[in-house]
């Protein structure tokens, strides 16, 4: 099989003080730093050999939404690679207008947890390939979970959280991943609240737990600080794609450089 592993730059897009869409990147967990123009970044990563591009709308406001859809269209026009758009998608109509704006896939998080039928509705109307279910997982070291993994010699499970990790749901990530796939999700986008912003590497036990238990492709996210972390999440956890933000935005590594490094280690890459 020569299916390559995918390297996916991700941008978090918010409105700036003038009401224009702008990319912000988290530094040390909380502080968001202005990073650039979404369209310029899309163009740059498209040319640099990114395999896909993820656009997350973090405005979560009604007035932001209009601007965001226009921005999605402008990004799509420069993106000859697959474009996934997430943030605030809660209804079939949201899915439709996001796809119509030029997204190839939508990433749904809270909207699907609140109403799981949204997955079926989206898959039936637009195909499984465009329904990506995103989870914000948090480690829990108690007996309330269903699927346990070993972390630093301790047994833990992973809980789906909402509101950026501030609120738990009690739902086991692995169970939810299975259910999402059964309902027609075409891909799973796995974020880790524990690893997010650390740059210490992806949450390997989490990613592995999901990869081992579902047959849909898995995008690993959160925690990437170097190309070695990507190698680890592909080789040890079995992820199909690795997403990163700050290492690319702050030009610590170029997409091309990362892909060449991984290819040399024997990870199948599109070069």
């Amino acid at each position, binding site marked *: 099989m020569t299916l390559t*592993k995918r390297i996916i730059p991700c941008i978090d897009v918010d409105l700036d003080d003038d009401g224009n869409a702008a990319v912000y990147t988290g530094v040390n967990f909380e502080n968001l730093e202005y990073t650039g123009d979404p369209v310029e970044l899309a163009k740059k990563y498209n040319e640099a050999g990114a395999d896909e591009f993820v656009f997350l709308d973090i405005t979560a406001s009604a007035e932001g939404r209009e601007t965001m859809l226009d921005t999605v269209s402008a990004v799509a026009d420069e993106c000859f*690679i*697959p474009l996934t758009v997430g943030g605030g998608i809660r209804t079939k109509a949201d899915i439709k207008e996001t796809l119509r704006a030029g997204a190839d896939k939508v990433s749904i998080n809270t909207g699907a947890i609140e109403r799981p039928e949204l997955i079926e509705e989206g898959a039936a109307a*637009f195909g*499984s390939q465009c329904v990506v279910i995103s989870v914000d997982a948090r480690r829990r070291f108690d007996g309330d979970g269903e699927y346990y993994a070993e972390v630093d010699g301790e047994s833990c499970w992973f809980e789906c959280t909402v509101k950026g990790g501030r609120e738990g749901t009690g739902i086991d990530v692995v169970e939810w991943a299975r259910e999402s796939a059964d309902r027609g999700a075409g891909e799973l986008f796995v974020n880790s609240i524990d690893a997010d912003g650390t740059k210490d590497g992806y949450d390997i036990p989490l990613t592995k737990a999901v990869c081992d238990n579902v047959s*849909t492709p898995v995008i690993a996210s959160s925690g990437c600080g170097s190309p070695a972390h990507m190698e680890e999440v592909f080789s040890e956890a079995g992820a*199909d794609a690795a997403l990163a933000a700050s290492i690319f935005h702050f030009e610590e590594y170029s997409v091309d450089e990362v892909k060449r490094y991984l290819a040399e280690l024997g990870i199948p890459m599109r070069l």
Partner: protein
Amino acid sequence: MSITQRTAEVVLVDYGLGNLRSVTRGLERAGADVTLSDDPADFDAADGIVLPGVGAFSEGMENAGPFRDALVDAAEAGRPLFGICLGMQMLLTSSEESETVGQGDVTGLDLVPGTNLRFDQGQKVPHMGWNELAVSREHPIAEGIDGEYAYFVHSYYADPDDENAIVATTDYGVEFPAIIANEAGNVFGTQFHPEKSGETGLRILRNFVQYCLE
């Protein structure tokens, strides 16, 4: 035959499915003048027709129903007809997909006789991502792309009756056709999405535009 340089007039069939915006942008970038159309009358005036598509086979055929005769007529008249992803699968005769979802015997356009099969070798389905193209025979659409990568998203793959219909293949546990074409050469399709396959995809779209002008 064109003597002076002119733009290829390409009709993109709008039958309610597919990411038309991306395909339009890709074709425009490749130098085509694109018209979105849900009127079969437009097909005759076009230099080429593109049948896009994502989603399910039976739904695709149902939605494309009103265009069936016009598409078959255009193909038989020798007009270039390019199916993308589901649009390519619809060029064949049938699909296991319509059986799986219990919608009975849905007939494709039957321009490239054969069926569409589901991956069943334990691969992750859908086959999603970038995979390598191996060109197995010459066709204008496939020029310059051997060994390059293209972006695939699909759960079924074409199995044409005639092996000569295969222009390029890809390996995903099973070797399957990535590009197919009819005997006359004017009806062809890619299982992958050229509009999402970076520079390689744009090359294929340019090949198509060039073919439309010849």
